[in-house]
């Protein structure tokens, strides 16, 4: 008994130290969540259109918009979208003039890459993406073909894609939007089109085309929401919301609605 009391006395200090440190972890490290709650709204900067993530169609607004709406419901605030038509016109995000004052979340094609994390923190991943090719008929390889390339806003590795296409001796035509890509392929000017995998899957489904992911040497990335670095309390709440959306099946239902495979199921399109 005496020995036990001695040990308890010895350990009381370290136990107190651990309890004190653990209590500190309950303090909020920033004000990002309290600002959202005080305004009863969370603002998201999105491109005007980037199907299937953002469509601009009120009945079928896009994967990112629907997920964000579910997250906003979980937090108990309204979702305010801030469409930015500068997104995609220029691949330097600095020229999009998106700042902390305009939105708390960036959505519509943000991928979890080192480059993205140089500027932003990221939310949980919900789908996988990468470069994919669409064509009216299956292709064995793309050597010597003429393809349209639509990069839009995706944070995918454009330099890697350019090097790969150069090695394959592909003639590249850069197109500005998905309609231009569809018209080029349908009109026979292009043998195929390369773009972000989810968009490619949608174009292939709409036009009854063949679609395949480009080889593994071109990295695949997780799609995420961009958050401002340091907004830890908001990030934690969004992570909680994602856990809830995953467990109640909402996330899977949204992805299925747009024909996108959930995380860890190898993406929506087969490999080339």
């Amino acid at each position, binding site marked *: 008994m005496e020995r036990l009391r001695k040990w308890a006395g*010895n350990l009381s*200090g370290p136990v107190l130290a651990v309890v004190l440190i653990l209590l500190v*972890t309950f303090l909020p490290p920033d004000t990002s969540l309290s600002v959202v709650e005080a305004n009863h709204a969370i603002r998201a900067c999105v491109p005007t259109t980037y199907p299937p993530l953002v469509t601009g169609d009120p009945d079928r607004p896009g994967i990112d918009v629907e997920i964000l709406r579910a997250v906003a419901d979980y937090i108990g605030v309204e979702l305010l979208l801030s469409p930015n038509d500068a997104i995609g016109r220029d691949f330097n*995000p600095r020229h999009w003039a998106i700042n902390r004052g305009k939105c708390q979340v960036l959505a519509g094609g943000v991928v979890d890459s080192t480059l993205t994390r140089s500027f932003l*923190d990221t939310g949980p991943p919900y789908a996988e993406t990468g470069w994919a090719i669409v064509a009216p008929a299956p292709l064995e390889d793309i050597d010597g073909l003429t393809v349209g390339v639509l990069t839009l806003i995706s944070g995918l590795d454009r330099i890697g894609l350019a090097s790969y296409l150069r090695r394959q001796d592909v003639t590249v035509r850069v197109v500005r939007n998905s309609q231009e890509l569809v018209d080029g392929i349908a009109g026979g000017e292009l043998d195929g089109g390369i773009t972000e995998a989810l968009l490619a899957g949608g174009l292939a489904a709409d036009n009854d085309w063949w679609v395949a992911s480009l080889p593994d040497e071109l990295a695949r990335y997780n799609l995420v929401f961009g958050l401002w670095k340091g907004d830890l309390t908001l990030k934690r709440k969004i992570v909680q919301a994602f856990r809830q959306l995953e467990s109640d099946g909402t996330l899977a239902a949204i992805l299925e609605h747009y024909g996108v495979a959930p995380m860890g199921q190898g993406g929506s399109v087969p490999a080339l």
Partner: protein
Amino acid sequence: MVQLGGLYGLWLREVKRSIRDRGQLIGGVSRPILWVLILGIGLNPYFRSEVYGEVTFVVPFTYLQFIFPAVIALNILFTSVQSAVSLIWDREFGFLREVLVSPLWRGTILLGKVLGGATVAVLHGCLVLLLAKFCDVSLTVPKVLETLGLMALLAFALTSLGVVIANHIRSFQGFGIFSNAVILPLYFTSSSIFPLDPALSREQTRVVYPEWLVSLVEWNPLTYAVDALRGALIGYNQFSPGLGVLVMGIACVVLFAIALYEFRRV
């Protein structure tokens, strides 16, 4: 067997003494709270991005995440070096004389003291690990095991350094002043609170920072320990990932050898 028993006894004595020392425990708790809670949160807004595409902080992490591994190193640094104060204490009150006339080898006595101090230092490092979630650093079992290994190496090297200092200092006050004069410069010049941009070449870095500061950071062995901890905890290295382990391994051997050489002359 006698050597092992003695080693265990000395190790246990060091650990028990530290656990009972409320002052050391308060230090172990207050340092992470001050550095993470006050400095980390206080400076966090100044390192966060305000405009998408504009880089204000070259490291792809928040400031809290960036300094988190460094605060672990700081807690280990303080605890390791200051645990060597027990050597002065033992010398002052005659315990060391009693141990020295025992059948234990000098190397065993020193190893017992160093291992004891290193164990306590690792435990103090673990106190900081409890703040991982607060700093948005995710921990997995392999990550924690790798971090514990690095912490043990660092703690062993620094406790040996503490013994080297204690061998040269005769009073408690002198040790306190001298150890602080070693600890703080070591910490501040270890790229703990500011990064050397790994995207920049050596020449470019010397344009961003004055050459003397870059040299101090590069010469400081603790830089590579902090870098190794960053690599293990947040996956960010400013130097070659294996360099930290190599530098700490060499520091363990060299500092323990110096400590043993001087301890034999006690």
